[in-house]
């Protein structure tokens, strides 16, 4: 949240931060940063090795004449598949640990296992090999039935296997940090409660998180919980507004980088993925979004969050992709309404886990991978969806999905009056939205790039898809609820990200008519105005926001940006300093402040600020680049090269380090050294088109036209690296043709000019000016027609 607008305005300029949206349940405007990690949860309860071995010993075959007994047949099934939850202090409402426990529910057990209600496990068998599947086999279900038909005999009591001994994994290996929510009294009402608890993290510096685990003190009332991080102070403010601990309704936060941190009853114990960790910054708040189900009496509710820190930074960065349509519009009374969507992945990926998400009308979910070789794989199939039991499912082995695979999702909804789960009585039109009366068709996928250096290609492509999807969804929602603030703000933010600032401005102005004092839309409006070039009006908005909430760092930051773009640098600097004071560990305000300091030659202070930012975020390429810039200005080229190398390591699609250094040299007027570096860069990476392009640029500037032409031809002939995001490719292609066009002008070569313009206009079809120049030139070449 905090640096949302800033990022929105700078996508593309900053090297490494490929940011994108993640829309999640009851959460607005989640923005994820590119750095990500593995699905965590943890072993809530582990059975001792001995009892596991006992439980998984071979079960006797199904057809048999001797009686089925508890001791030899039933106990092993129950202990392995049911007792994990059906034991004291776990999520199930009663225990299944003894013969009496099981016998006194025998018919009920047969009923619910036959109907498939228990054990709760939504994915259909045969589609997706998931870890810790709780499903019973057909023979196990039959065995239970036979046992009841035979009168629930105990068998030899001595032969009853030991009930699973429940060992708290936290006792065996305590987390490095355990944070607790304040106690909350859940009243004995009938309605479910959705509440967010806000936790501050007592750490001094940034830490790598290996795993984070949610533990309810009272699992019986907890239907599910999901953990987000909030780098703004928004959730803290909302918490303070509500007299009781936490606040109702929508959460405010984002999934931690590339993570889905979920607690669900009886959830799978997900192993920690090695080499994958995410950064937790001090001053970040954790937001625990919980769904609680009252039990009939007042319940004391409390949650703990246990964090284990990683020893080393991550080796790979997973990402969470949200696929699925937001174009949801289900007419009242429809029994089967199908919503389909697809996303084609631009690179090879490995799929680690899958988390389908919809609300109460959804009946079926299917996600299919259609590979370009024509093969088809059902990634998950749910025939009887129940939002109360949905979970994140982790594949036993990651699934490799090659480039160009289409991920096709299909959701079926029942919006009839006959659907007992229909929250609308009578049924009414339902559109996209995060409230429980709205619907969603989301599939969250945790993935890693098969070739880690191509990650940015995926993230940029996905962001475009995601924004398009959101624009459609929010517009759909606004058709039905024209004043819904969630949709208005969401749509405006999506438009800002897409550069459609005029649309964003008009929506936000509309939004502010009904809520003139809401701070967030004011700041968003400021961002949109700033992006559209109206710095004066932007300044007004940000100023108003700082008056409403003097602690809103983003408002000060925006104000500073608006002042800076009007060249009011002195006051801009003051405002940036204010923003840094409010979020001293943030990167964006510090980098922007450093820019102003560089401008006025205060290089030492700029360097000090950026070095501190690098200590907090050593994995950010743009901080390294800023330090490279400062070092170059100080003529410390060795140091500069080190920062350039680090930036390239972190963002592999950027220019080779020596090219970056060369650029800084040119800026200092050290052209000869720069040229030498470019030649070295070409030697070192002969397949990279950038050194050729830049050598050509230099040659052209020095009027060595023939040499320039050769460089450009070579650059055009080289393959574009496959780790370049599409926008990067686009920029390169346009730049190359611009250079060729300028060269053509120098050479007065109309054919070269026409050729370069012809290619150029294909990359920028919307550039009308370009089309016009091309047509005029072509006409000129053809000569007077009269």
């Amino acid at each position: 949240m905090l640096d949302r607008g800033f990022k929105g305005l700078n996508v593309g300029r900053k090297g490494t931060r490929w940011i994108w949206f993640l829309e999640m349940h009851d959460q607005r405007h989640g923005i994820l940063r590119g750095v990500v990690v593995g699905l965590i949860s943890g072993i809530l309860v582990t059975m001792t090795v001995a009892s596991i071995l006992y439980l998984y010993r071979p079960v006797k075959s199904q057809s048999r004449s001797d009686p089925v007994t508890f001791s030899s047949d039933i106990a092993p099934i129950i202990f392995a598949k049911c007792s994990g939850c059906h034991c004291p202090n776990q999520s199930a409402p009663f225990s299944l640990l003894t013969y009496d426990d099981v016998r006194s529910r025998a018919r009920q057990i047969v009923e619910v296992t036959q109907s498939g209600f228990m054990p709760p496990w939504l994915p259909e068998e045969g589609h997706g090999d998931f870890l810790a599947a709780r499903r019973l086999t057909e023979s196990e279900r039959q065995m239970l039935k036979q046992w009841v038909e035979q009168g629930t005999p105990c068998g030899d009591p001595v032969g009853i296997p030991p009930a699973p001994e429940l060992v708290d994994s936290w006792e065996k290996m305590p987390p490095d940090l355990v944070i607790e929510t304040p106690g909350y009294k859940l009243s004995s009402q009938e309605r479910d409660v959705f509440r967010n608890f806000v936790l501050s993290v007592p750490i001094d510096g940034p830490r790598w998180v290996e795993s984070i685990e949610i533990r309810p003190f009272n699992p019986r009332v907890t239907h599910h919980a999901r953990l987000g991080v909030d780098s703004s102070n928004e959730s803290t403010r909302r918490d303070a507004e509500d007299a009781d601990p936490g606040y109702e309704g929508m959460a405010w936060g984002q999934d931690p980088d590339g993570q889905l941190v979920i607690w669900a009853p009886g959830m799978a114990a997900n192993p920690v993925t090695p080499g994958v960790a995410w950064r937790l910054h001090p001053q970040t708040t954790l937001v625990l979004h919980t769904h609680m189900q009252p039990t009939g009496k007042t319940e004391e509710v409390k949650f703990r969050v246990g964090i284990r820190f990683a020893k080393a930074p991550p080796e790979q960065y997973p990402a969470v992709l949200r696929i699925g349509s937001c174009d949801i519009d289900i007419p009242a009374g429809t029994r089967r309404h199908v919503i389909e969507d697809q996303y084609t992945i631009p690179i090879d990926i490995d799929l680690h886990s899958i988390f389908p998400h919809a609300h109460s009308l959804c009946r079926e979910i299917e996600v299919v991978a259609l590979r370009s070789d024509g093969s088809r794989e059902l990634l998950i199939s749910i025939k009887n969806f129940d939002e109360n039991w949905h979970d994140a499912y982790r594949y036993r082995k990651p699934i490799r999905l090659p480039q160009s695979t289409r991920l096709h999702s299909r959701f079926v909804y029942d919006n009839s009056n006959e659907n007992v789960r229909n929250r609308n009585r009578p049924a009414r039109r339902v559109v996209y939205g995060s409230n429980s009366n709205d619907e969603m068709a989301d599939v969250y996928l945790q993935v890693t790039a098969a070739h880690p250096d191509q990650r940015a290609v995926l993230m940029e492509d996905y962001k475009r898809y995601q924004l398009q999807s959101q624009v459609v969804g929010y517009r759909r929602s606004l058709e039905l609820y024209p004043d819904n603030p969630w949709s208005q703000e969401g749509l405006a933010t999506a438009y800002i990200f897409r550069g459609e600032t005029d649309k964003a401005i008009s929506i936000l102005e509309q939004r502010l008519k009904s809520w003139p004092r809401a701070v967030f839309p004011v700041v968003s409006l400021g961002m949109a105005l700033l992006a559209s070039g109206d710095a004066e009006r932007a300044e007004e908005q940000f100023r108003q926001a700082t008056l409403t909430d003097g602690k809103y760092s983003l408002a000060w930051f925006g104000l500073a940006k608006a002042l800076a773009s009007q060249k009011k640098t002195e006051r801009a600097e003051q405002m940036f300093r204010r923003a840094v004071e409010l979020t001293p560990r943030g990167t964006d305000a510090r980098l922007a402040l450093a820019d102003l300091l560089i401008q006025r030659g205060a290089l030492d202070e700029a360097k000090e600020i950026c070095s501190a930012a690098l200590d907090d975020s050593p994995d950010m390429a743009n901080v390294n680049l800023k330090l490279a810039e400062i070092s170059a200005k100080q003529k410390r080229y060795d140091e500069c090269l080190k920062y350039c190398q680090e930036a390239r390591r972190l963002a592999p699609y950027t220019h080779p380090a020596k090219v970056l250094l060369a650029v800084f040299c040119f800026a200092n007027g050290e052209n000869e050294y720069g040229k030498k570096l470019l030649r070295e860069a070409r030697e070192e990476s002969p397949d990279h088109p950038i050194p050729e392009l830049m050598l050509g640029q230099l040659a052209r500037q020095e009027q060595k036209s023939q040499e320039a032409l050769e460089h450009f031809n070579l650059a055009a002939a080289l393959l574009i690296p496959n780790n370049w995001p599409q926008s990067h490719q686009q920029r390169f292609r346009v730049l190359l043709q611009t250079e060729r066009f300028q060269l053509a002008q120098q050479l007065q070569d109309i054919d070269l000019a026409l050729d370069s313009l012809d290619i150029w206009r294909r990359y920028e079809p919307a550039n009308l000016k370009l089309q016009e120049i091309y047509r005029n030139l072509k006409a000129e070449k053809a000569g007077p027609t009269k």
Partner: protein
Amino acid sequence: MMIFTRSFVVAAALCGFVGCAQDDDKRLDPQVIQLLDLEGMKFDLWQKPSTATVVLFARSDCPISNRYAPEIRRLYEAYHSRGVEFYLVYVDPREEPDAIRKHLQEYGYPCPGLRDPKHTLVAHCGAKTTPEAVVFGRNRGMTYRGRVNDLYVDFGQARTEPTTYDLADAIESTVSGRSVTNPRTKAIGCLIEDLKD
């Protein structure tokens, strides 16, 4: 005794849930019904004069039963002053009186708890599940047996809000001397038959 109980179960099963004729004439036989209070003493359902008597079959670890506690409290508040007596009848023979006292207190039940370890009242009423409610009229005839309301449709399938308030309607009709519109409904919950000794 055993045969007697079984024949009742069969009769109840035959009756099914299709709403057979109101068996207002089937009176409680104190010789057959062996209800115990929490002191272990025999308890007579009719010791207090009432306009109607409501029995809710329960067990302390039945989650569906427990979630109805607020609704039972509301009904008690609405009808006790109009002469309606409420009893929670615990059907698990293993359930100790102390555990029952704790359960009543935790869930804030304002009415007394009784025990039916031999399922005599269960059999008489033909009750199958917890929570299943039974309403007796002034003449001790059963006017209603079934769910509290239709919040639950099946295990794990609950509506956001009930659409019918069957027990409330049955009590109202019984107290006012009208016949109950739906005298038999299907209750969703834990099966009492599992608790037989």
